[in-house]
């Protein structure tokens, strides 16, 4: 990737360890540009603070700057600057937006509709299931699922979006070339392969550190319209995401749980404090819908609500939908086609009908009863439908 001279220096300055979004902003305000910071660096700049000054001093080296740029290219990342159209619009509005983001996968992360799904790294089966279900339904409705790529709920949320054929953005607390937790390597690849994005404000090569995660959490809530807290234990990082969401004036949704489940204690506390209780993707979409938004978007979302409503009863709604809220889309006279465009054979149509009636594709026995086909035929047809892209 080619950078302008100023961009080059911005990458350098943002990549200095210890220079956060706030220090970056102060330096730019005072000197006018990152290039100026580079040129004028000296004793005079000590006002920035002792350790920050030392860090800049240590990084003030042409080779080091060049190495940083090279490492970005090497891992296939690109840089999205705050001024770029691809920068998440909502993120610009927070108190300390990162000056730039490193992105792998799809570079355009200015998704119109983002909802964060967060929760503990030690979820219950219930939490995982709900994260998958709501995440999948939201993704199918065209919402980008934002999460932190951690174990547990985060992983479930990303996975559900990928499986649903939807969009997901993983916000890392380390460099975009570091896979953490390591067992998620496959998910990492799948996100990149499914037109998702993996982003971070830390330069490539940055190892995961405890202090990074709270910083990462402000991005998760910052770029989203709402944050769904699925489950959380005391001291959970997800709670931090929720408090940044509140600071940033984002909607906070909580999933209800059992009264005596420690995993749901925080959720119930948040609900008492005013968070919205939600049980499905539909409710989240409805709540967000109430906010003022451009007319065309409203209609798009209205459709999404309809779709979600139709499908939330079954765990795996068969309708795939590319609900990308493209700005050019005409206002909603064309609802999503309920029937697949591809020609179906008679058997395929029968199985498809059965799927639409809400039977999960894993329950072959039920479908055999409903369609009158043999188990062999049902399984054959299911693969055919999957290959044709009609089901997942």
């Amino acid at each position, binding site marked *: 990737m080619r950078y302008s001279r100023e961009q080059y220096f911005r990458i350098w300055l943002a990549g200095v360890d210890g220079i956060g979004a706030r220090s970056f902003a102060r330096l730019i305000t005072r000197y006018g540009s990152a290039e100026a910071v580079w040129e004028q660096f000296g004793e005079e700049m000590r006002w920035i603070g002792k350790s920050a000054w030392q860090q800049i001093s240590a990084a003030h080296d042409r080779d080091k700057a060049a190495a940083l740029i090279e490492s970005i290219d090497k891992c296939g990342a690109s840089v999205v600057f705050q001024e770029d159209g691809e920068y998440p619009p909502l993120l610009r509005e927070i108190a300390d937006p990162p000056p730039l983001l490193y992105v792998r996968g799809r570079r355009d992360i200015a998704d119109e509709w983002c909802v964060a799904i967060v929760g503990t790294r030690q979820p219950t*089966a*219930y939490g995982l299931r709900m994260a998958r279900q709501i995440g999948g339904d939201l993704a199918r409705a065209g919402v980008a699922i934002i999460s932190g790529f951690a174990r547990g709920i985060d992983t479930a949320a990303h996975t559900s979006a990928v499986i649903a054929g939807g969009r997901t953005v993983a916000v890392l607390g380390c460099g975009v070339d570091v896979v953490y937790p390591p067992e998620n390597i496959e998910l990492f690849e799948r996100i990149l392969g499914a037109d998702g994005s993996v982003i971070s404000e830390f330069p490539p090569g940055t190892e995961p550190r405890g202090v990074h995660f709270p910083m990462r959490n402000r991005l998760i809530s910052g770029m989203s319209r709402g944050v769904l807290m699925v489950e959380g234990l005391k001291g959970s990082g997800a709670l931090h995401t929720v408090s940044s969401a509140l600071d940033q004036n984002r909607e906070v949704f909580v999933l209800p749980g059992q009264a005596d489940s420690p995993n749901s204690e925080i959720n119930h506390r948040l609900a008492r404090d005013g968070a919205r209780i939600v049980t499905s993707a539909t409710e989240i979409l409805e709540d967000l819908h109430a906010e003022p938004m451009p007319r065309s978007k409203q209609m798009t979302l209205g459709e999404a609500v309809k779709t979600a409503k139709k499908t939330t009863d079954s765990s795996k709604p068969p309708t795939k939908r590319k609900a990308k809220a493209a700005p050019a889309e005409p206002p909603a006279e064309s609802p999503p086609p309920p029937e697949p465009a591809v020609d179906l054979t008679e058997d395929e149509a029968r199985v498809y009908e059965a799927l639409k009636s809400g039977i999960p594709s894993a329950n*072959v026995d039920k479908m055999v009863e409903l369609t009158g086909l*043999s188990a*062999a035929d049902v399984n*054959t047809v299911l693969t055919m439908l999957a290959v044709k892209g009609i089901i997942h």
Partner: protein
Amino acid sequence: MFARVTSYGLDGMDPFEVSVEVNFSGGVPYFGLVGLPDASVKEAKERVDAALRNSGLRVPAARVIVNLAPASIRKIGSMYDLPIAVSMLIGAGQLDPSAVKGVMFVGELALDGTLRPVPGALSGALFARERKASALILPVENAREVACVDRVPLLAASSLGQVADHLAGRAKITPLKPVPYETLRSKTTSDHDLAYVRGQYEAKRVLEITAAGGHNLLMLGPPGSGKTMLARCLPGILPDMSFEEALEVTRIHSVAGRLKADGAMLTERPFRAPHHTSSSAALVGGGRDASPGEMSFAHHGVLFLDELPEYPKYVLESLRQPLEDGRVSIARVHAHRVYPSRVMLIAAMNPCKCGYYGQAGGRCKCSPDDVRRYQGRVSGPLMDRIDLRIRVGSVPVEDLSLSAPDAESSESVRLRVQAARRRQLERYSGTGLYTNAQLDNRLILEHCPMSDIARNMLLLVTQRYDLTPRSHFRIIKVARTIADLAASDFIEETHIAEAVRYRMLDESSWV
């Protein structure tokens, strides 16, 4: 005086000739038994003595030495009682040596002189035939076991007295009339018929494919979903055992003394379900005597391992080689034995410790780590040998009370399986293979021609599901069997499409 009588011994399943030699000489009355007898053989002295007396046969007191030749091989068991008794009668001059020429004897004696059955009679009868013996005299209770053996006179005796009468020419025993194998096969339907299995259409279909291709199968499902019941139905849809197969199976059971109470030859495919607390010696064979294990008892049949992850890891690992080779070889200090073990492995497991992971209703309380650990107990190399993996769901209680629709019976499924097996035998004739399950990656390319559409389909699913080369080959293998069931020489698109569905559990996350 000296006498010699022929008998046989067993080294595992393999018989070897044993000469029982007796020498009578003057001196202090004495009875000595030599020729590496183990404790069970040594006790023959007391049994033979009492049996002779109680049969009204007198042997004069003398210095008696009995030798079991070859003297270097260890002899085990009570089967030498009869030959020892007969040789003593000859040695004492009460029977003519010419009467036992070419005749083999085997049998355990009771104190009253009646004959008791011995293990390994079938191996002995076949051995007698091979050695062209003029007759084999054996206990009457072993008669049913050897009923099918022809081309050798088999004389079934009930007591020592009867044997003595026969040899003396006082009352001849008529040889057994060989029974054709076909008439021996029981026609009774088993309790485990697919017609009684409600729902489970997918599982039944997979069972059919498993049977047709001789594959191994893993069923994953919560408690009470009918995994065991389905596994028990498998022998009923496998092709009938051929005579040669039945002989092998019966021999294994016979040498271990594991035949049924009536002692009849086994005509139904074995179904063995060892508990998960079984030791590896019990499963693959071993112990002091290097005796056969469950894998060999299940030879030509089904080995069912319920709760697969509950088996100790080293036990599961010990199954790998026998599964691959179709035989177990056991080496001990005193014995090295090879037993056949061509089994179909049917494994069942819960998805997690509590069994409810992935079920609706949130009954599972296992953490993801627990689940991973539980499923990880089954090693990759063992999983590699399992071609078909399906999830078995429980049938809702309300469906159980409905009147059952007419399900297909095991018999009609078996006919299709048999036809598919025949196609495989024809295709693989001369290659030493019998079933699709035995194909390795190289042979798959050779024996699994695909239509262009099928190849395209395979490519599509490989990309879509991001399949590893391993599952890629496994799909072809299973598709080959599906094609055989459909009587198709080529693998078609639909065969691939169906086979893909049965590798659902390949992914690291099973649920």
